[in-house]
């Protein structure tokens, strides 16, 4: 650690002034690597599906226009399900469910876990001990089992699934945030901010948060894939999104009873889940490589 007597010319500027912008996202470097490009591509595709679902989907996702369990043909590109609904349209609308679950669960996790991690690393002492013991307890559960237990107690629905996933993921955020906060707390600009009497809230949000943004963004991206996977699993078991809403997990869970007659009902929803999760995983890995050279895996 640097002391005040040391004179390190280039470091003075870097060490005393916090970065202005929250984060400079090197998009060029992100898409220049194949995994990053594929990840960005899949996530953009999901976004387009979710936003423009009514324009893109050839049929209504809930109405039952066709014959049941048709194999893919020129009208029903991915076939029809056990109620005669167009599978492609339901998959396109399903992107809305997946992204909404991702956004809301991860926001809950970020708000609760991120704040707890910041507070825990900032105040240390008793606060830190209490928060970290609670986090230990949450992390001691196999996460899917805890998610299943919470959402079944609250009553199975899409909103309780999102709440349960968010709550369980917040423990991971609290743990991930605390480490970098401890490191940044040692920086001179934090010391300077404390010396001029900045409010703890100001220090946390102006000085700490921007400097832990890199690991936080990576964790957020990976939490998206975790949330989508967890919701799909819950809905597969009938404990998440309830029919007739087009959740990929529900489609797979309900459709699999008919898959020997029409494999499409089980194949395509599962592919959609896998692709979405793969997209966020690739994006998260690429972001980690680009943003955080110290965490780079070989």
């Amino acid at each position, binding site marked *: 650690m640097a002391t005040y007597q040391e004179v390190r010319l280039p470091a003075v500027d870097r060490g005393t002034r916090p970065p202005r912008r929250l984060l400079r996202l090197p998009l060029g470097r992100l898409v220049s690597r194949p995994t990053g490009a594929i990840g960005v591509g899949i996530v953009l595709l999901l976004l387009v599906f979710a936003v423009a679902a009514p324009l893109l989907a050839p049929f209504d996702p809930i109405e039952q226009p066709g014959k049941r369990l048709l194999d893919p043909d020129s009208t029903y590109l991915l076939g029809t399900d056990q109620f005669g609904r167009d599978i492609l349209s339901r998959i396109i609308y399903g992107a809305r469910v997946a992204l909404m679950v991702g956004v809301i669960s991860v926001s809950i996790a970020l708000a609760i876990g991120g704040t707890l991690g910041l507070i825990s690393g900032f105040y240390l002492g008793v606060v830190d001990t209490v928060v970290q013991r609670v986090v230990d307890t949450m992390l*001691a*559960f196999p996460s899917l089992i805890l998610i299943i237990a919470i959402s079944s107690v*609250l009553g199975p629905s899409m909103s309780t699934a999102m709440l349960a996933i968010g709550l369980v993921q917040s423990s991971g955020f609290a743990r991930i945030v605390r480490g970098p906060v401890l490191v940044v707390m040692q920086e001179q600009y934090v010391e300077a901010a404390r010396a001029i009497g900045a409010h703890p809230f100001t220090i946390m949000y102006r000085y700490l948060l921007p400097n832990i943004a890199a690991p936080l963004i990576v964790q957020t991206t990976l939490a998206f894939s975790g949330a989508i996977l967890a919701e799909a699993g819950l809905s597969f078991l009938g404990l998440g999104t309830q029919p007739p809403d087009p959740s990929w997990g529900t489609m797979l869970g309900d459709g699999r009873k008919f898959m020997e007659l029409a*494999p499409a009902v089980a194949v395509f929803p599962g592919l959609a889940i*896998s692709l979405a999760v793969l997209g966020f995983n690739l994006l998260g890995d690429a972001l980690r490589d680009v943003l955080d050279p110290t965490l780079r895996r070989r």
Partner: protein
Amino acid sequence: MGNYLLRRLVQVVPTIVGISILVFGLMRFLPGDIVSLMVNPDNPMPEDQRETLRRMFGLNEPIYVQYLRWVGGIARGDFGVSLRMSTPVTSLLFQRLGVTVELALLAVAFSALIAVPLGVLAAVRPNGISALSAQVLGLVGLSFPSFWIATMLLLVSSLYFDWQPELIWISPFDDPIANAQQMFLPVLSLSLALIAVVMRMTRSAMLDTLSQDYIRTARAKGHRERIVIWRHAFKNALIPVMTVIGLQIGGLLGGAVVIEQIFGLPGIGWLILNAIYQRDYPVVQGGVLFVAVGFVLINLLVDLLYSYVNPRIRYS
């Protein structure tokens, strides 16, 4: 070692207490209480009878008394009684334990058998086909949900191989071959994610150790490359791999819930899930607690193994 063991044991206690509070507290969020869940809505019970039942279950006592009573029961091996089956939860749990343990053990063994050599190979030959396939497998394994893999395996085996799994679980002690046939697909679908994680960890740990000075020394001494890789590098790379396997057991137990359901294997996950469907909350409560505490104890065991293999941990 004894000192370290004691320290780790003491650290586990608050976690287990926390787990029990969380599980107990969770069940208090249920709408209504156990009595209202037991009562058939078509045939409502008079209020005074409900009151008697509540008193019987101790529901009129303060919440901390109820908690202590529950924890005290568990300490004596009493997890309560199933609402639907009128069987003690403890005996239900122990009946189902074997299936889940077998599934998890086989999945860990199978994954290690595939993932460790592949990870080593990918690290030793970073430009070879094995490195590429390791990368692809690593991403696919982490992204494809086990329940979809399981569904696809069932689909393919029934469509093309005309294979139907036995509906009743056969113990490996009764008929090992029938059991193996039955467990093969569940283990395979549960293993994929574990293979991905273990392989990535093996690869990066091997790359780490291969760049160490003692590896250069070993090579400089003129050891054959095979000895350098397996005796000098691999042994040291194994330590983080062990930890990651321990940490993945939580994911494995979660995945087992879904896999047991798909294949109709009567394990702990199957028990918890069906208790949820039937609103049999004493079973849910006991099952979740049982699994979480088991997971903590497994991680403790992994930690102790870890410190046995790597003495530096003990003295830090």
